[in-house]
């Protein structure tokens, strides 16, 4: 059994003349939660989108389960890999179950239409994301957190081993952020899914990731366990921010406390008081 199910070979990504990711070789471990971090515009979303074949690489290749993605049909890929893009507009006039059902699309053909098995898989996906009770409600009537769970339910109905999520917690309050990440954690623990997430919140990333990848200068700056990746040096290099890194009192994972102009003033003030 291979330990990597997703691998990029000298992958170069970009738009027109601008290169965003340059000759990247990346392995994503199987059955783990991998979280991509980096400054705005560092190409982490671009990388995720290209792995999900939503963006064509300029050069290089991506391997899925040891197969070149270019050789696989887009429907075949959809049976192995599910993606939740960043900007999902909630489609008008669809109920929760109608939306989740779309996840079965790659498994259907002109001859093989909706089956009892499909129905069961959809119900299961709605149950494990806790949206089963809202099955007949229009998606547009739901809150942001509920909507995101419905979208995740749709990707679960796809029954793939790998799940890619692009900033799934954006626009959610902190309680719903935890809820979504707990759900990802559960899917990894219980169902053994390989999950790749692009996330902005470093402290949450360090909590939930088995494997972290920090991107800078069109390539990987650091990768490994959260303890290996989240350091004061990485924060300085990748985010150009001075930080203290302490231990998260709950999970014992690294936690960053940034310095800021205001904090600096407070420190100065207290120093003045001491001097006086």
């Amino acid at each position: 059994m291979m330990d990597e199910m997703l691998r990029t070979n000298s992958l170069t990504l970009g738009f027109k003349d601008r290169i965003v990711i340059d000759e990247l070789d990346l392995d994503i471990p199987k059955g783990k939660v991998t979280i991509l971090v980096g400054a705005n515009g560092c190409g982490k979303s671009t990388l995720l989108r290209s792995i999900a074949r939503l963006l064509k690489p300029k050069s290089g290749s991506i391997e899925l389960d040891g197969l070149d993605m270019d050789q696989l049909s887009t429907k075949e890929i959809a049976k192995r890999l599910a993606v939740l893009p960043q900007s999902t507009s909630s489609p008008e006039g669809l109920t929760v179950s109608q939306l989740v059902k779309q996840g079965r699309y790659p498994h259907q053909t002109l001859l093989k239409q909706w089956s009892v098995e499909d129905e069961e898989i959809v119900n299961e996906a709605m149950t494990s994301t806790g949206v089963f009770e809202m099955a007949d409600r229009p998606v547009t009537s739901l809150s942001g957190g509920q909507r995101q769970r419905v979208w995740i339910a749709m990707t679960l109905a796809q029954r793939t081993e790998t799940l890619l999520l692009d900033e799934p917690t954006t626009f959610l309050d902190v309680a719903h952020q935890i809820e979504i990440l707990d759900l990802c954690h559960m899917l990894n623990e219980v169902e053994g899914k390989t999950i790749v997430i692009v996330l902005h919140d470093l402290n949450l990333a360090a909590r939930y990731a088995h494997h972290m990848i920090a991107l800078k200068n069109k390539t990987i700056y650091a990768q490994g366990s959260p303890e290996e990746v989240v350091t004061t040096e990485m924060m300085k290099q990748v985010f150009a921010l001075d930080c203290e890194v302490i231990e998260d009192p709950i999970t014992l994972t690294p936690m960053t406390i940034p310095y800021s102009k205001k904090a600096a003033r407070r420190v100065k003030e207290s120093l003045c008081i001491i001097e006086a």
Partner: protein
Amino acid sequence: MRERLLTTRSKIIGLILLILLFILSLYMSIQVGQQQVAWYVMFDALMEYDPTNADHVVLYHRLSRAASAILIGLSLAVSGAMLQALTRNPLASPGVFGINAGALFFVVVAISFFSIQALTSLFWFAFAGALLAAVLVYVLGTVGDEGFSPVRVVLAGTAINALFVSFTQGLLVTNEANLDRVLLWMAGTVANRPIEVLLPVIPIVMVALIIAALIAKPMDLLHTGDEIAKGLGQRVLALKMLIILVAVMLAGGAVAVGGMIGFVGLIVPHIARFFVGHQHLWLILYCVFIGAILMLNADVVGRIAIQPREIPIGVVTALIGTPFFIYIARKGFKQS
């Protein structure tokens, strides 16, 4: 908005009611007019047409225009539904896409420069014009850094529409002799269209409807968003090309037969969605019947409103459509 007919059962019952309403409208369309003709004469006329029998002649004319109305109504309605799905814009329609204006312009060119009179030949010009306008609008709305955007497509459509309308007017002003012949095309009419003219259009419309039914399910998926659809293994660009092709085949056919008939392609999909929501197979089926019913009745109204003269059907649909358009536009803005 949520659909009113939730279960498959209720959707089937709704469809049966629509079919009954359709038959009633067809009957009305053949019966209503200045000259009263007993309905059983219709069978005689169909079985053994006698060109010297005045009743037969009247029936033949009414049947022809009913056939035109049905064909145009269902084509424009389904075309509008396809374009609204493509652009995710509730105000999209063949008219907004410039398809009508493109077709009209080519027809005027054919009449003015090539002195073509036969409707069957004009049809191909109309079709080419519709295709050119649709491709121009799609390219203008798509090319650029941000890619395809519904708003840019509608803006491009408005521009192309204005361009072709200006060209058409320019040609007519410089060549007034053709004005009479073109005027009815511009107003939109189903009068004096012998059934033979419809014959080349029927297979095209049939093929388009079959393709529409086959891509109904992928269109359901497209409704969830381009990237979601791509992620689920849909070849989105190919699907969009097919949608445009179907929309152009249908709208091009409709314009070729009846000229500029507005609003049908805009409002019928909304009425259909009100009942069956965004399941496109049902939506297409409902559009077929609602479109036909609307056009049959608009034609009857046009025939009897100011007897002995007639209001062109395009004017009737505009009278019904304008308030509806304003309603949708206001509702749409409130939502976004």
